[in-house]
């Protein structure tokens, strides 16, 4: 059986998932996620050596269309839902670090 998730491991996953968790959440999620992983690990014992993975119930084909102009959503209708906009664009906090 695999090791239960530690609080540190949960903190690392949370960082990858862009979540900030408090101490209480880290402990609780470590226990709950470990319990789920312990249950689902049963499938690791199944012999699937000759089985190909399925990502989608049916075979996917590319959907193509002629490269013709078509109407899209009006810019102002889309921007109206954004938390902050400026000059017809989404406004976000600083992305890059301070200039040296």
């Amino acid at each position, binding site marked *: 059986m695999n090791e239960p998730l530690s609080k540190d491991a949960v903190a690392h996953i949370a960082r*990858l998932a862009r979540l900030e968790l408090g101490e209480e959440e880290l402990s609780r999620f470590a226990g709950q996620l470990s*319990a789920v992983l312990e249950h689902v690990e049963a*499938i690791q014992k199944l012999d699937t050596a000759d089985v190909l993975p*399925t990502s989608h119930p049916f075979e996917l084909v590319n959907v193509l269309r002629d490269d013709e102009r078509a109407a899209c959503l009006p810019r102002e209708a889309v921007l109206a839902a954004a938390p902050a906009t400026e000059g017809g664009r989404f406004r976000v906090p600083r992305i890059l670090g301070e200039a040296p």
Partner: protein
Amino acid sequence: MSETEAFAGGALQIAARVRSGELSARAVTEAALEEIAASEPLLHCFNTITAELALAGADAVDAKVLAGEDPGPLAGVPIALKDNLCTKGVPTTCSSRILQGWRPPYDATVVARLSAAGAVSVGKTNLDEFAMGSSTETSATGPTRNPWDPSRVPGGSSGGSAAAVAAGLVPLALGSDTGGSIRQPAALCGVVGLKPTYGLVSRYGLVAFASSLDQIGPFALTLADAAMTLQVIAGHDERDSTSLTHPVADFATELKRGVEGLRVGVVADFLSEASGSCAAAVRQAADALADAGALVREVAIPELLHGLSAYYLIAPAEASSNLARYDGVRYGLRVDGDDVQAMNARTRSAGFGDEVKRRIMLGTYVLSAGYYDAYYAQAQRVRTVILQSFARAYEDCDVLLAPTTPSVAFPIGAKTADPLEMYLSDLFTIPTNLAGHPALSVPFALGEDGLPVGVQVLAPALGEGQMLRAGAALEAVAAPGARGPVRPQLGGPMAGVAK
């Protein structure tokens, strides 16, 4: 007019009376809105009630009838929409703080098709946050209560839609089903719930949870109403690249074909995992189908029991990717931070509830370097095994019969502290989603504490016709009082208390 008079005979009857001019869409809509408002303090089926829009929509239907134009096959029928379906200009929250107040700039394809068919949307129903849950308790707006016994859950994730139909607030509702989110609440609320073949109904405008599993479908009190709703929403849509291009069958015709000679397999592996009344209902259903001329036998498909584990790796993996879009930039909540990464993390931590966080983390973990093969890739191989085992079963069977749920509706709060225990509610519904097949829950019997029990009919891809044939035979012999509407009251089961 009382709501009971207006709704008599279900959706098809309402539409027939509105089309003939005998009944106005406005009167039906007003009756539904009144009933919804009265029920809301007890049941909380709705996140948003769109009274003004509904009345305007009803008036437009009445105007068409007056003008002699065709108002559509669902003319004047009130319908409730799960709050993860985009509605232009109307809040679409997924019962999450992160989307509170968001008004989509477009309608989901199913919403547009229902409206074109004359249906009148009355509001957006409560769900487990982002459809992640089996009880509607993970909703940021509070739980929906089961109209049969308000101390119990309605199931989930489409609990608001199921409860609204079960309580007789609306004759029709839409839900979405990723691992059982239509069929499980339908069973726990004593209504019909139908999950169509993956790709039969466009997902355009359905807020994505697990894109290879999600599918929209109807709730109704009768199979005929559910079949008509499916007829309206099914069919190719160029805005969903996974939408099938096959011609759509005529479901009303299929419903009347009977089950003479239909080959039915009872999934033996599920019976031992279900409670007394849920297993007994399947055995009674099998006998009833045999009496009606079907060829019934037991089949062993033990691989299906691995579906739950595969699902709880695949669905969170897809969810962790789909929910990356909630970053505080383009819509919904933003909690400011010094830089964009801090803003992202603070927004997501404040906006998502516990269950959504758990699934995002589970998905992130099983996709991460070093764990991908052991968890995610293995789950995808088990998905293949499940598809192959279904294919073998369908060599000798046209449909399969199984319990929908392991038990009747459980008390509110009973499983919230133990996510794994909650996940086990989906044991019998999940394999269908992994395979992309259709399945149906029919209200069939009364079980423990007088609560409703559903029987599930499964079929291979695009087997909706044979699935409806079997379902109709079960509906014809279902226990009296096993389906809604029920008049909800505090303090005990409402079994059999029909309006």
